[in-house]
């Protein structure tokens, strides 16, 4: 467990003293590269297309600092509240970036060579796992500055390694809590699932109090080997004043099947960047997004589906329900590289405006450099259909309840595609609560 860090901000010179020369060579290397990149990169500007429609002017990473480890009482209270994936094989719990619970895997899985452990343990016991090229992935969708900061503070988070042909029948769960006001955390997830192997992993990002102001910059590198099957669920429900940046990279080898679901509930401003690379023939990736945006929330979703191999399929569906003065930005690009013939790529963004003050921006894009492809995108923004509303009102259901029912019906299309029914219920509960906040 690391010692509390001085309260100086995460972006200033404290960076140098906080990490100078400490830790194993791999960690120090990653952090030094992150520091150098952070110092040299500008903050995103208004003329950066990748930040179009985002509120760039109010964007600031200042005023946050890493928090010390939580008290034993806080830690055990939060561990008790971490059973969101009911039938989890194992649950890792982090509080403000510090790992407070990591139960051992079953002997069978350990024997099969499965690794599911916090990075601090991996550094000690299996440092070679961190010499992964995934840790050098660039942020292609605009978050390079944020990713550099995350690397400068690299050390929190976990590694999941599933060797070839190993099938995990139960999901793994990771819970990140934000506890201290003004805390900053920089978790990393390095997920590598080998050939024909199978795994499901759920990540929950939660605020310990509803109105916390915290910063989280997380990075996920997910690699699905040939024929692997992965289901991933990432749920963000930070405190209402939080800032959240998630920078994800998914790589799918030949015939791999990946489902990645992102649910956005909390935070004042949350940005998701997800780059999916289909680099093996016949890879199949499904991307799902679901959001209920309320108050002054800004949800910024940037996705890129790169088809680098022939015969692969990708399908994206992002549904956003907006209330109050909330704002969502969906920007998605399907890129079909030369030679990626027989590509099937789809992208759908549906926005439901439940308030005249809410704003939904949509930037669905295609870049196609092969001709034998089936590609389409669709984006719609609209209100609840008056006919459907009338049907419910005519049956005596009050207006507010009818609107809520229809909005929840709109979101069900994504929720029913979450493989784990218990986790889907937990997400459904969080989204419903937002209609009454």
């Amino acid at each position, binding site marked *: 467990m690391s010692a509390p860090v001085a309260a100086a901000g995460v972006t200033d010179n404290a960076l140098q003293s906080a990490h100078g020369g400490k830790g194993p060579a791999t960690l120090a290397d990653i952090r030094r590269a992150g520091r150098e990149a952070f110092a040299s990169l500008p903050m995103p500007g208004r003329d950066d297309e990748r930040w179009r429609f985002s509120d760039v002017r109010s964007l600031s990473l200042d005023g946050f600092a890493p928090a010390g480890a939580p008290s034993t009482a806080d830690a055990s209270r939060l561990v008790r509240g971490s059973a969101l994936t009911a039938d989890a094989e194992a649950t890792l719990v982090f509080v403000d970036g510090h790992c407070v619970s990591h139960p051992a895997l079953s002997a069978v899985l350990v024997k099969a060579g499965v690794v599911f452990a916090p990075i601090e343990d991996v550094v000690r016991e299996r440092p070679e796992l961190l010499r992964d090229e995934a840790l050098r992935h660039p942020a292609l969708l605009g978050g390079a500055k944020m990713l550099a900061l995350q690397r400068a503070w690299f050390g929190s988070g976990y590694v999941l390694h599933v060797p070839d042909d190993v099938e995990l029948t139960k999901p793994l769960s990771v819970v990140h809590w934000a506890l201290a006001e003004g805390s900053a955390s920089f978790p990393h997830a390095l997920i590598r699932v080998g050939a024909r192997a199978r795994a499901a992993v759920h990540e929950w990002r939660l605020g310990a109090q509803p109105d916390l102001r915290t910063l989280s910059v997380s990075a996920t590198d997910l690699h699905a080997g040939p024929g692997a099957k992965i289901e991933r669920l990432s749920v963000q429900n930070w405190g209402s004043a939080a800032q959240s940046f998630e920078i994800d990279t998914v790589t799918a080898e030949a015939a791999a099947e990946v489902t990645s679901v992102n649910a956005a509930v909390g935070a004042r401003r949350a940005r998701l960047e997800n780059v999916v690379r289909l680099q093996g023939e016949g890879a199949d990736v499904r991307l799902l997004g679901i959001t209920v945006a309320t108050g002054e929330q800004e949800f910024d979703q940037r996705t890129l589906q790169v088809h680098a191999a022939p015969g692969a399929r990708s399908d994206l569906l992002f549904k956003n329900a907006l209330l109050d003065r909330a704002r969502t930005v969906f920007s998605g690009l399907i890129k079909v590289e030369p030679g990626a013939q027989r590509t099937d790529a789809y992208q759908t963004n549906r926005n439901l*405006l439940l308030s005249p*003050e809410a*704003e939904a921006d949509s*930037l669905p894009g295609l870049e196609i450099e092969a001709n034998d*492809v*089936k590609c*389409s995108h*669709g984006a719609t923004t*609209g209100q609840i259909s008056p006919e459907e509303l009338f049907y419910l009102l005519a049956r005596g259901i009050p207006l507010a309840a009818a609107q809520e029912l229809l909005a929840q019906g709109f979101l069900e299309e994504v929720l029913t595609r979450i493989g784990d029914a218990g986790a889907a219920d937990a997400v459904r509960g969080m989204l419903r609560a937002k209609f009454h906040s």
Partner: protein
Amino acid sequence: MADFNQDERAQREAIDVDRSKGDFKYEENYAYDAGVGLNPGVVDYISKVKGEPEWVREFRHRSLGVFESMPMPTHWATNDLDNIHFQEIRYYLAKGQKASRTWEEVPDDVKRTFERLGIPEAERKFLAGVEAQFDSEASYSRMKEELEKQGVIFCGPTEGLRDHAEIFRRWFGKVIPAGDNKFAALNSAVFSGGSFIYVPKGVKVAQPLQAYFRINAQNFGQFERTLIIADEGSEVTYMEGCTAPKFETATLHSAVVELVALKGAKIQYVTVQNWSSNVFNLVTKRGVAEEDAEVRWIDCNIGSRLTMKYPGVVLRGKRARGEVLSIALANVGQHQDTGAKMIHAADDTTSNIIAKSISVGEGRSTYRGLVHIPRTLRNCRNNTECDALLINERSRTDTYPAISVRGRKNSVQHEASVSKVSAEQIFYMMQRGLTEGEAMSLAVNGFVNDLVKEFPMEYSVELKRLIELQMEGSVG
């Protein structure tokens, strides 16, 4: 690989065949020539030659300042823009005559040029008025007497701003301010030629008004300025068609077209763009539609090296309607970067965008769109459809729409698809005796057919022929 090279050569030849129609020019002997490069002196020169009022000269100078202060939009647009060398371009050149009224007054070599373009026949056949543009100046213009009697004004910008300032000054540079973008600023500084049209209240112009544009000098950029005002309840269709001869070095064409449809008026603006494949065609086109008015852009881009053009409609009055129908064909060495903008600014407004593109060989077509509905509005609707057809393995297409919606009871839908001509279709047609090329050409014409039908008859015939020529050698 050898096959592919042959394929490419065949495509080039197909283009050459197509271009030959406009590939001619006559000796350059320009009485007025502002020289090469851009500076305040050039602006003064143009303004003086044209005998413009002081306020126009000031407008030009302000615009030049704006142009110089704005960066190139390469943060989102193609880097090919960096190949424009502004100091190597001639910004003004005129044939040494004022706009003529009768055919007899037109110089002989200009007449010969127009004859090859088929203007006299076209005019005799059906045209209500011809504003044929030779280089910078309108060198021939005539209107049928009945149009004049109806009070329709159809002239160039110089006459429009000098003789009818009370009509045109109010809207000139208002729909597209000089600062709108770098190329609109450039046009505002050095514009010459183009059409200024005013249609009085309630007048429905039965025949389309038409202008032909020609480029006829090396390194010579054309900067037409068009302003069409349709007064309350009036209707007008304007047709703009382009052919340009080929040159070794790149040529810049940067027009600004402003349309104003007042209450209940209808404007339809039809373009067939077929510049030679060395032309940078960077055009700003926008219309304003007041209450119950309709602005319709029908835009077809076949030529040029790089076209950047996103016709827009600002829907300012209740129940206004905007529409963009767009066809783009990108062949080897071409980038058609086209699209549409719909700015909803009043309740109950509707807009429709249908864009179809075809990429042949290594051609690249891009759709960029903007649909904006702010929070104060209600009952606004937009429908956007973009379909792209890719012919060869290395053809490229991109789609970049931006949609921003707030307010009550507003709805937008956007659909885009990318496909290729199915092997079954081609097989079916070849079974019935067509060659592969003919089958491909037929399939492509089928893909755009529902849009081509929207063009006036003689344009749609020409368009089909142009598409057939472009498709020659694209397969096999």
